[in-house]
């Protein structure tokens, strides 16, 4: 297969979780990569003190964004819950205008490629195609995982939610044809849980030959970037949020 052409470069990020210091560095890093398109896979808020700043930056940049479970949770909380300290403080500080934005985010974005005889559907979700709070973990049973792809009509499924990045290629052979599916967890910008406290996002490279019949027909690059974790953790400790959220940023757990 030829990959001699410049590929379509798509940046995918998610799970910022109101961590503005991490988000600013993510955007710097993404800008340096000069992607052709950027998508955000949700969970802009929760666990940190900068939800409004993160939402404003995403809106200002007109980034196509879908809703995560934390984003859809906000409208379900009562006035009482929103005025509490502890976990719910992270939602209580979200402004009216920002709440409206979260309440109108789409659930999924599907991008259909028809680059050759082989059509390729890329589906962006937060958790899974059926629920924004379902975890699609790397060790999921292959047959079950393929069913998720087929039910959603997807060849490439990109999601976040677990904060643990991976790219798993699944295959199914019928007769003498083998078809491949790509499961891509984009990791987390602002709350990684894979033991590496750096923020992370994904660059997807799609070529004119990309299709479902070649396992290596798209490249998935996991980018990690440094940010001022201590500054970010201290901001949590100086707020009504639980101190354990700060420790989790330091340890990436």
């Amino acid at each position, binding site marked *: 297969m030829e990959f001699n052409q410049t*590929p*379509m470069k798509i940046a995918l990020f998610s799970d910022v979780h109101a961590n503005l210091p991490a988000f600013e560095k993510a955007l710097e890093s993404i800008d340096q990569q000069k992607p052709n398109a950027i998508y955000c896979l949700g969970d802009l808020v929760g666990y940190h003190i900068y939800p409004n700043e993160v939402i404003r930056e995403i809106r200002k940049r007109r980034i196509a964004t879908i809703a995560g479970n934390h984003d859809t949770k906000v409208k379900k909380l009562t006035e009482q819950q929103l005025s509490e300290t502890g976990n719910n403080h992270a939602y209580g500080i979200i402004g009216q205008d920002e709440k409206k934005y979260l309440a109108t985010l789409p659930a999924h974005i*599907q991008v259909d*490629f028809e680059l050759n005889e082989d059509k390729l559907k890329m589906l962006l979700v937060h958790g899974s195609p059926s629920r924004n709070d379902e975890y699609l973990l790397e060790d999921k049973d292959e047959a079950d995982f393929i069913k998720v792809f087929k039910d959603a009509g997807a060849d490439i499924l990109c999601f976040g939610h677990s904060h643990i990045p991976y790219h798993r290629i699944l295959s199914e052979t019928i007769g003498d044809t083998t078809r491949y599916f790509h499961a891509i967890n984009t990791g987390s910008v602002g709350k990684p849980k894979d033991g590496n406290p750096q923020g992370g996002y994904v660059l997807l490279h799609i070529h004119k030959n990309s299709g479902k019949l070649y396992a290596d027909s798209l490249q998935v690059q996991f980018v990690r970037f440094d940010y001022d974790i201590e500054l970010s953790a201290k901001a949590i400790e100086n707020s009504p949020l639980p101190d354990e959220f700060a420790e989790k940023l330091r340890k990436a757990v």
Partner: protein
Amino acid sequence: MKIALFSDIHANLPALESFFVDVEMQNPDAIYCLGDLVGYNIWSNEVIHEIRKRNIPTIAGNYDFGIGRTSNDCGCAYKTDDEKANGAISISFTNESVGDKERSYLRTLPAHIKVEFQLNNDKLNLLLVHGSPRKINEYLFEDREEKSMIRIMEQADADIMCFGHTHKPYHRIMNSSNEGQNHYRHAINIGSIGKPKDGNPQGGYVMLTLNDNSSILDKDSIQVEFIRFDYDVEKAAKAVEDSPLPNAYAESLRNGI
């Protein structure tokens, strides 16, 4: 949620620059481009650069499809011999002037984007295509039979379908009610940034506004605004006249036809 949708720039950089100034003032939450970046004017590479630079999710138009494959067929429905001869000059001029990287970008653009909302209890699918869901170069004019339009949207599972290609903007609401339950579908032609054909030479685009109560059950719960903006038409027309492109394209820009 304010979503700006634009298409059919057709290498008209002065129009695209004025569009960006205008749309920034509107402060949308997302911007999508529905294709046909190139052809009919001299700034194909510059238009691609401006759109790539802004990381705007973009789908391929029929002209992009042709140039991406270095084809001499843009899939355009030219009627007269003059139109065919002019079209041949435009596509060969565009093929010669587009750079390798820019051609690769056009070559790998997706065909459609579907944005799926689940705002209340129902689903609301916004489908973005260039011509129609079935064909990149199918013209969906406003006078298409309602049954046919509804069938196209049902097959594509689209509640709001936005497209360009004809360069003539319109918004048509149809009720494909099922067992007494209303199901309003919106067909929206977003017009053209750089080559309008509705008699108004201003550039045009669409602003779609969705609220948390937007639904297929209420036809007024989705706002569609057609925005027109001035740009330096004369500069774009002169650029055509000073190039190997047919002068007829300059006149089209001046008259919006």
